[in-house]
Structure formats: structure tokens, C-alpha cells
């Protein structure tokens, strides 16, 4: 028998003491009547229900579409999550019923002006590369400007609701990763393989990953600085530990 623990000695002493203190053995009491029913009446009110919005049990509710052109390690297909447009606020990002409270600050602003064709219809309001219109003052085109790119490099003037690839193909806004991957192929490979990008799933089963523009504002991709969560108060070598 393996030796595990010093506590039993204490048990025996305690038990022996109790035995000698009480000579009359109440034999019915030694049996099962002390067993507690787990489902017994609750004497205290049950705790309030925890916010389970982060629990992946709700992953089934995430709206996601299969990724085209990329696959995970071993050729496993994966999906890119679609942000739902309702009830987004602050730093929270909503995907179906999953709300992520933490995400990169400075992610894409909500596409409040979508669909683009609500203004850019016909020739009434033409998309120009020369300047950003008053309606889009929230856009800081730092990323395209650094690259020498203009609006029409990614946005198709003739189909503004779509994105234009270098090949001339037009893709849906939800497939923005295809646009980014044209230059950032190393990142795209890491994204598909699990080394880049936020996962909304487990390590087993279905794989759902957030899209590029859920964290990075395409016009200004670097995440903004923020104040971190509180520092630890217990330090190694300081105090007890």
C-alpha cells in the first residue's frame, strides 16, 4: 500500500477519543441514516445565473460561413464567423448569441452605412479616389495611404457593396479575408492553421475563426493601446510567497 498522507493519525486519535467518551454504541446511528440526499431541500436561495454568453455551448448559434480557398492543418475545412449587426456596443462583438466582451480596441467600426448602394446608386454619388467624402469622415485611410493604394484598389466603384480582388473578382464583404490574404499571405496561412486570429470554438470539433476585420480596422489595422487589467498584488519573493 502506498503511503499517502499524515492526516489519518489525527483521524484515529479523534475517533478513539470520541469512542471512549461515549461508551454506549448507538448502532442504528452508524449506518446509512446519515447519508445526505443530494437533491434535498435547498435551505439557501440558489445563486443567480451566471452570464454564460461566453460559453461555447452556444457555439451552435454562431453565424458562420465556410472559408473559401484556405483550409486548416490536414486540409480540415473551417468557418469564418459573421458579426451580427444588432446590439453591438463598446468593445463587445456579437456573433449569433455569443458576445465577446474582449476584442481588440480599434476594430472595424460598425457598418452603419451599409449597404453602400443606399447612397452610391447610379451616378448620384460617385465614389472618387481623390478624397474621402463628408459621409466617411470616420475612416482614417492610413493603411491604404501607406501602401499607395486608393479607395478603388479594394472597393469596386461599379459595385460598391462588394470588394474587388486584384484578379478583378468581386467578393462579398463577409469574405474580406480573401482581400487581405492577397498581400498578407503569411498571416492568412497562420490564420487558417490556428496561429493567428481569435477562435470562437474548442480545440476539438468545429472550427470557427473570426475574420480579419473583426479585429483590424482595414483602414487602420494596428490595435490601439489600452489600459491592462489590474497587475498582480502578490509577487514572487515579496511577502509570503
Amino acid at each position, binding site marked *: *500500500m*502506498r503511503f*499517502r*498522507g*499524515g492526516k*489519518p493519525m489525527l*483521524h*484515529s486519535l479523534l*475517533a*478513539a477519543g*470520541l*469512542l471512549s*467518551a*461515549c461508551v*454506549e*454504541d*448507538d*448502532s442504528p446511528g*452508524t449506518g446509512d441514516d446519515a447519508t*445526505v440526499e*443530494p437533491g434535498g431541500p*435547498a*435551505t*439557501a436561495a*440558489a*445563486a443567480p445565473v*451566471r452570464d454564460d454568453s*461566453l*460559453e*461555447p455551448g452556444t457555439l451552435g448559434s454562431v453565424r458562420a460561413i465556410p472559408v473559401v480557398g484556405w483550409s*486548416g*492543418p*490536414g486540409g480540415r475545412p473551417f468557418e469564418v464567423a459573421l458579426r451580427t449587426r444588432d446590439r453591438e456596443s463598446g468593445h463587445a462583438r456579437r456573433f449569433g448569441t455569443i458576445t*465577446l466582451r*474582449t*476584442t*481588440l480596441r480599434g476594430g472595424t467600426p460598425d457598418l452603419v452605412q451599409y449597404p453602400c448602394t443606399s447612397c452610391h446608386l447610379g451616378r448620384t454619388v460617385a465614389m472618387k479616389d481623390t478624397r474621402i467624402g463628408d459621409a466617411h469622415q470616420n475612416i482614417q485611410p492610413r493603411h491604404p495611404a501607406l501602401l499607395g493604394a486608393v479607395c478603388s484598389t479594394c472597393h469596386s466603384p461599379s459595385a460598391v457593396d462588394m470588394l474587388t480582388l486584384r484578379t478583378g473578382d468581386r467578393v462579398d464583404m463577409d469574405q474580406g479575408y480573401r482581400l487581405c490574404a492577397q498581400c498578407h499571405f503569411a498571416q492568412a496561412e*497562420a490564420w487558417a*492553421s490556428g*496561429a*493567428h*486570429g*481569435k*477562435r470562437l*470554438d*474548442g*480545440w*476539438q470539433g468545429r472550427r470557427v475563426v473570426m475574420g480579419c476585420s473583426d*479585429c483590424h480596422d482595414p483602414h487602420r489595422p494596428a*490595435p490601439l493601446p*489600452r*489600459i*491592462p487589467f*489590474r*497587475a*498582480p*498584488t*502578490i*509577487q514572487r519573493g515579496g511577502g509570503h*510567497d
Partner: protein
Amino acid sequence: MDRPDRPGSGPPPAEASLLNKPVDRRRALTVLAGAAVAGVQALNACRPASTLSEEQRELKLLAWREYIKGNYRDMTEAERAETIARLERQALVERGSAVTIQSTGAQPGVVFGYAFNISKCKGFRSCVEACINENNLDRNADTQYIRIFEIEDGVVDLDHADATFQHEVPAEGHFYLGTQCFQCADPPCVKVCPVGATWQEPDGITVIDYDWCIGCRYCMAACPYWARRFNWSAPEVPVPEVNPNQHYLGNRARKTGVVEKCTFCIHRTRQGRLPACAEACPTGARVFGNLLDPDSEIRWVLEHKRVFRLKEDLKTEPRFWYFSD
């Protein structure tokens, strides 16, 4: 203790069976415990009936039965279910907190591994926050399993790294590196435990039986990574903030005088989910997966990225790698 084959449960008095039969220590203790319970009841019978309410009586019995139980590893499935039922009941009656404690075992063909991208981490400490909430860490002592170090570019020197930074991050000219329990393949903490209260599970997670730990803290001295934390006082978690999804070997309620540590969120990862830190990380710096699955994300990182581990020369074989883009 309800087993019919054990001495003491039947008519012969407990003491007699102890004296007449050769019994191992655990059985002897069980018998003595039964007798002790009887003793307590007999003592109570001499006192006014109102001294102990029904609830107090129940709690005393629960506490006693918990006190004499065995090591989790030696328990049968039935014994595990019994102790879990007692612990859940204790949590409900004592603290008013309805919890579910699992005893989910390791999945076959799974060994967990972790990779940390030091070029992605921005030092936000979202993982620390998630870890505290998920694992019911002591809010009073402010226990934290994860440490994020701010290190100047160009060196990996943890002696001169700052884990207490509290300014806007990421800071210019610095990178960030997080540590936690590395679930070593050859864990020194397990070797030094004098009572076998901590061990490595088949999926590589080193766990602690909090009810078997005697609080000697040898494991803390043995760990080269300062991954373990000691409860100098009873951990306090406000009831509304308690995570009710618990595991016997993981985030269930701890007590004074026992050691605890990161378990890769054993209650989540054994169900195929990610650890809370990986799920909370907004930058995707944390990669988690099955090392035995050649098509897992963690294997891709190990095969395609330049990785390193901390204090590799100690040969503890951490299952926690660092890499950069």
C-alpha cells in the same frame, strides 16, 4: 463507507471487528469514523435537542465524511460520485451556491499542449481576468495563475522583466510574455509531494487533490516557474461570481492551507473547449490543442514556427512553447 463488505457496517461492534480481524488502515479508519459519528450522535442525545438544527447536523456529517474520504486516485467511481454529491450539497447549504462538479476523465489519445505568441501578446491581461473568473480564484488575496511580463525588445531576460506594469499597453520598444503552469512532462512538483496529493493525468495535466494536500508547499519550492499558489486564508469568491461549472481536480472551492494551480481549465478542455485564457485573448496569441493529433493547431505551430521554452536546461519538459511570427 456504505459497502456491505466492509467491517463495522453490520451488527458486530466496530471495536470488536478492529481487534479481531486484520484490516488495512483505511478500512480501520472508516470503521472508527462510523463509530465516531455514532459517538457524536450519542453525545447530542444527552444535550437539549435544540442545540443543533437539522441543517447544522447535516453539515457536520457532511464535513466529517469529507474529512475521512480517500485520495481521489484511489476512489471507485461510486465513491467519486458520493464525494461530489457531498461537495455540491455543502456548497449549496453552506454558501448558497448551486454548483456542478465533474469528474470527467482524460480523453484517450489526447495530450494537451500550449503555445504562446510573444509577437501577438499586447499585455492587455484579458487572460488574467478570464482566469480569475473561470477558476474561482481568491478575490481577497487576489490570486492570479497567469503572469504577463513586460520585456524590453532584444532580450528574453525574465530576471529583469516587469510583471507589475500598469500603464497603457503595448508600450513602445517592449514585448510581452505570459507564464502559468506549463504542465511539464517531467514535473518536479509531483516528485516532491510527500503524500501523493498531486499527480500528472494521462492527458498531461498536473492536478491536485485539494482534500489530500497537507499544505507543506514542497511542490511550490520545487516548481522552477512559480506556477503554484498557496491559500493562506480561505479563498473568497462572491456567490454571484462563482463559476458553477467545476471539476473535482480543477476549479472547485479550495480551502485554507492547500496549494492550487492552473489546470489548463480541466473542466473545459476535457469537453473539447479552449481554456478560458485562450478564449479571452483578444489578439489570438494563445494556441491550444492536442499534441498527439498531427492536424491540430498546436502541432502546426510547433512544426512551422521557431519555438522555445523557459528553463529548458532543467529538463522538466514543459508542454508550453513560445513562438513569434
